[in-house]
């Protein structure tokens, strides 16, 4: 039964690491998209002036 714990630990780690990486990717993609939108808007505004 002890061995089940090892299997569990390995699984937790593998999935934890993968999801953490995906989460980080998603978050930075979101912030970048927001930055991009804001930048485009400010460029648009200054062009209209």
């Amino acid at each position, binding site marked *: 039964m*002890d*061995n*089940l714990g*090892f*299997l569990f*630990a*390995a*699984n937790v*780690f*593998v999935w934890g*690491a*993968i999801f953490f*990486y*995906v989460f980080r*990717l*998603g978050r*930075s*993609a979101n912030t*970048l*998209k927001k*930055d*991009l939108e804001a*930048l*485009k808007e*400010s*460029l648009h505004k*200054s*062009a209209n002036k």
Partner: protein
Amino acid sequence: MNGENNDDNKPVLLWLTAAAFAAALYAIFFYVPTERTEGVVQRIMYFHIPSAWIAFFAFFIVFLCSILFLWKKEREWDIYAMASAEIGVLFCSLVLVTGPIWAKPIWGTWWVWDARLTSTLILWLIYVAYLMLRIHTDPGSMRARYAAVVGIVGFLDIPIIHFSVLWWRTFHPQPKMISAQGLGAGMAPSMVGALLISLTAFTLLYFLLMGQRINIEKLKDEIDRLKKENLYSH
């Protein structure tokens, strides 16, 4: 691999990966019989070996893209090499963590200085150094060139490291999954099947992550470009 193409591909690739992982998980936990001598813990193998494969594959891609970068000097290849190195280090870390968790109940110790373990550890160190080099250098053509050189130098070292650690410690028991006879020799067909499904799922995951990472880098480039335009437009 341009922008629109990626957006079209993404849902397809995403669903394919999800389906492959569902199949892999089913195969690993329900379909495959428990290994007689090692017990349930042997199921770690279905994550361990695919991770190792992806790590190695990713580092090979770094090597290829580094050569292509030095040859063509196109930013594209630098992005690919960098994304692949990051994902490779992620999966290499998975190998290094799942390995000891598997070894503890079977071999009785967390770590043995077995050839395969040792070379994986060194590989991990090489590519962590590669990523550190990228962090410590300002973005620009110099960073890309230096990283490419390290990407090439690092990959060429792999076979030499392999032989050196193999001759260094020949007396340890060979892990049975991959023997000299080739992948899966001495394994039940159902096990080979589950391993193959898992390998497919991990490979798809690699491409999915690559796509995301490359997109992020291109977004950064786009922002830089717009900032630059903004700077010079007056």
